[in-house]
């Protein structure tokens, strides 16, 4: 591998051109100069290779060597990934901190997974079994929340000659498989090139909802396990808070969170907060099911380009074990900008807004790695799902931005964040008028079975009220509120309740931060019950102001703060509504 040493002939920012690179392949990883800065070949002309370097290139000059590793960019897969924090090329940031201190020095190489740590391997397959790729050999209890299954690596098929129980590190042999070409020793460490999707048996249509605990999402614009969603919005509209909320409360078993070109302090927030937060089911820290990838905006731009692939490959690996995995990428715009920067340095002909012409195909193929799949396996039905939620940061919040448009063409859920809502401190600032979810029909039967037949009637009715409100607002703007009929004013009132007491959700409130679908169902029911009763009362000639001043409105406003344990108390409000209205009738 070292007999072919290239020589640098050009350095321009993160782009380095080297000659004498015969034998190099596209996307091979290379090491630049004696400092061994990691890079990747992105263009070949004769024996000249253009290399995007994942680290700062200051101090690199013409004539320095380039070593080709002969391998594409890979990630290491095996026990030890949970709770880790990696940079865009899977270098463990916690270990870099231990070794090098506060700053990330150049050229530092630390393996992604701990080579020393011993894991207790428990076999599931027996000696003599016929095994092939993707099948479970055994598992390691990696954290209290996650069983890390060890699968037969790609391309290996044969009879299990030997399998060992006990404590091993990830490089020790735990099994031997007798293949056609002879015995193959298997350890717990696997490697996979990041730009190649991991194989599966076949894709399935998503039909199970991924609950997020966010009322506007679960009720109106749900996402499916294995689905894709995007959250575009201008700065300050709360993209990152939504991504964090999903990472905390989504009903996925594993979370991969990619901080791609975003703020360093946001990653610190996640790092400090997640170990404190408890998984609602098990009570264990949420960090135990989370992998973080942090390539903040001041870290090298080429590694930012790689970070989404690093993340999605790790996510696919856990999907292959049959888990439901959710991947959050914040923000895909920074990833696209990294592509634009590299493309500009390569002097490629630009497409829209200077982005490379292949922007939309790259975005499409990234989101296409999501999905609900039958995993590789023969007998049992192992189904894994990978949901991808990407934040997009369009300049000026302008949705005609090429990254937004290319993303909207492939994703099925669109949560549109609006600056206007954010200014009035309505969070999550997801617009109920512009957002959509194409999964509503797929998920319908599942949700009806789980929650109740009436959930969709409620949802439709509530949405109708909100839409009516926006029309009525136009009228109010012209003629004033007093000119509306009592029925219309009731609609305005109910819409306000829906907006302020249902859709608005405080991410920083202990209880309000997440609501189960059962609670959402009950809350919606009460609001619409009130609508119905108040409507009856108005038809009997009541004045709207009487209704606006009802005491029960306060209880409705506060139902969001009712603990999940006591959600049956929400049902009592029905009686309170009846009582108050009948006492009003008596007067």
């Amino acid at each position: 591998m070292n007999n072919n040493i290239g020589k640098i002939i050009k350095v321009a920012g993160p782009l380095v051109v080297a000659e004498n690179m015969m034998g190099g392949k596209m996307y091979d990883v290379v090491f630049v100069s004696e400092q061994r800065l990691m890079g990747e070949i992105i263009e070949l002309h004769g024996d000249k290779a253009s290399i995007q370097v994942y680290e700062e290139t200051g101090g690199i000059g013409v004539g320095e060597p380039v070593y080709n590793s002969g391998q594409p960019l890979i990630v290491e897969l095996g026990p030890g990934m949970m709770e880790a924090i990696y940079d865009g090329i899977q270098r463990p940031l916690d270990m870099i901190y231990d070794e090098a201190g506060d700053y990330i020095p150049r050229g530092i190489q630390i393996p992604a997974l701990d080579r020393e740590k011993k894991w207790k391997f428990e076999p599931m397959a027996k000696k003599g079994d016929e095994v092939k790729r993707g099948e479970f050999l055994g598992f390691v209890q990696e954290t209290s929340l996650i069983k890390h299954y060890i699968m037969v690596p790609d391309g290996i098929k044969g009879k299990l000659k030997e399998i060992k129980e006990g404590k091993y590190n990830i490089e020790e042999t735990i099994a031997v498989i007798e293949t056609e070409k002879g015995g193959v020793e298997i350890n717990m460490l696997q490697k996979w090139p990041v730009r190649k999707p991991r194989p599966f048996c076949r894709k399935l249509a998503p039909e199970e909802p991924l609950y997020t605990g966010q009322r506007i999402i679960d009720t109106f614009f749900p996402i499916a396990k294995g689905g894709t969603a995007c959250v575009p919005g201008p700065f300050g509209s709360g993209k990152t808070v939504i991504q964090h909320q999903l990472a905390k409360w989504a009903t996925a078993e594993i979370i991969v969170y990619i901080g791609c070109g975003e703020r360093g302090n946001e990653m610190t927030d996640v790092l400090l907060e997640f170990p404190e937060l408890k998984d609602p089911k098990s009570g264990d820290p949420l960090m135990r099911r989370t992998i973080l990838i942090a390539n903040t905006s001041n870290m090298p731009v080429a590694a930012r380009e790689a970070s989404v692939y690093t993340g999605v490959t790790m996510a696919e690996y856990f999907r292959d074990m049959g888990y439901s995995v959710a991947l959050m990428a914040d923000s895909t715009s920074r990833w696209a900008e990294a592509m634009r920067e590299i493309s500009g340095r390569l002097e490629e002909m630009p497409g829209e807004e200077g982005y490379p012409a292949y922007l939309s195909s790259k975005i499409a193929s990234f989101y296409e790695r999501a999905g609900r799949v039958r995993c590789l396996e023969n007998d049992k039905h192992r189904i894994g799902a990978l949901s991808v939620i990407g934040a997009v940061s369009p300049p000026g919040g302008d949705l005609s931005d090429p990254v937004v448009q290319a993303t909207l063409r492939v994703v099925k859920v669109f949560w549109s964040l609006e600056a206007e809502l954010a200014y009035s401190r309505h969070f999550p600032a997801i617009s109920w008028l512009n957002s959509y979810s194409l999964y509503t029909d797929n998920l319908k039967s599942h949700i009806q079975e789980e929650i109740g037949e009436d959930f969709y009637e409620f949802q439709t009715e509530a949405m109708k009220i909100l839409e009516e409100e926006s029309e009525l607002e136009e009228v109010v703007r012209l003629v004033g509120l007093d000119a509306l009929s009592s029925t219309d004013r009731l609609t305005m009132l109910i819409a306000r309740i829906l907006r302020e007491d249902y859709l608005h959700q405080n991410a920083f409130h202990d209880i309000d931060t997440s609501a189960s679908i059962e609670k959402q169902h009950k809350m919606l029911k009460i609001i619409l019950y009130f609508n119905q009763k108040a409507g009856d009362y108005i038809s009997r000639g009541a004045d709207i102001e009487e209704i606006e001043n009802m005491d029960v409105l306060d209880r409705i406003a506060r139902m969001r703060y009712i603990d999940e344990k006591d959600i049956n108390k929400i049902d009592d409000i029905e009686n309170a509504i009846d009582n108050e209205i009948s006492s009003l009738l008596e007067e």
Partner: protein
Amino acid sequence: MLKDYKGISNISGPLMLVKGVEGVKYGELVEIKLGDGSMRNGEVLEVEEDKALVQVFEGTTGIDAKETKTRFLGRGIQMYLSPDILGKIFTGLGKPKTENDRIIPEKKLDISGNPINPYARDYPNEFIQTGISAIDGLNTLVRGQKLPIFSGSGLPHNKMAAQIARQSKVLGTEESFAVVFIAMGITFEESEFFIQDLKKTGALSRSVLILNLADDPAIERIATPRVGLTCAEYLAFEKDMHVLVILTDMTNYCEALREVSASRKEIPGRRGYPGYLYTDLASIYERAGKIKGRDGSITLIPILTMPEDDKTHPIPDLTGYITEGQIILSRPLNKKKVSPPIDALPSLSRLKDKGIGEGKTRKDHSDIFNQLYAAYARGKEVQELAVILGEAALTDMDKIYYKFADEFEAKYISQGEYENRSIEETLDLGWKLLSMFPRERLKRISDEYLDEYLPRFKKEEKEVAK
């Protein structure tokens, strides 16, 4: 050892191409000696075979192709540092401005710095009291935050920045801030205003000034913020000081960057700014923060004037995506003589939630902040409505909102340049204004706080009424 190269093959804009060089490194500092003996500085932007592309900080005026000599120094731009930099003034390239500003260096640091490991960061959560209600109460600043001021030409952003620098303190401690003031392309008058203000308050002796004024070379500005931040990092992380960095004006910095990019014939992004503007700005802004196990911190306040007050212009837009919030100044408020004219609705501090509440400010802070915001937003809406329909058409409740929005601007946001309000005063003022609403309208405040605080202010109002 270091070789001199004579002659330059191409000069264009701020760039020159030197041919026949050997062993030149990317990012290296270059000394340029002109035919008349004067010296200039440059930086290598690109090396290709035996050619080096050099960006000349002082501009290429007067450089001739034949006589000019270049010397490659084998290192990047370095800043000489010692605790004595406090009270000194440096040029945009980090050289002492006058003889008096010379120091005996204890350390040399490369100005480009290394990225802070996100794992090493400590989350900023210590409340800084600036004495300005619109910041403390609504857009709370915390130590280690980067909070820009989005302004426009003719708005009093400098006065506000000076007020922040003058009044900032962390509650319960007597430590004050060291100030690093970084000027990029601002006028002499503006910089003199800051210097005089720092002098008046005696803060000059704990300040470092890096000045690149409007008549200084424009390309030098590309190095200026990095020089200043290197000083800040030294003071914060090696000398355990709390450093407040004021960067003004980022718009001039970005224009210098655009000039270089255009001379290199790069493919432009929006409005002619280079595609890597985001990454470049991030490499400046992200140097703010706190590091685990270190006592110091860097709090960054960049000021930028938005061309045509347009928030979607690439400079404010990209800045807003990197910084942790923004304070936006508004021209209509300035016309109404609200001082400082902070536009509360689009302003935001992302880190406030961790910096407020019990033990930091007061337990009711978060609720009262939410309520003030909501009420002010509603009040502004009502005011718009009233323009169309006339005030008479408003409901009684809407009339209260209308009045509230006016009072809020006049009493809460507006306070004048020299009023220093404590956080208690700011929060109480909020309660006082909110007490004009009936209790059930204050939905965003929990019952507990309503019980505790509201009666106090309601009573006061009644007494006044009597």
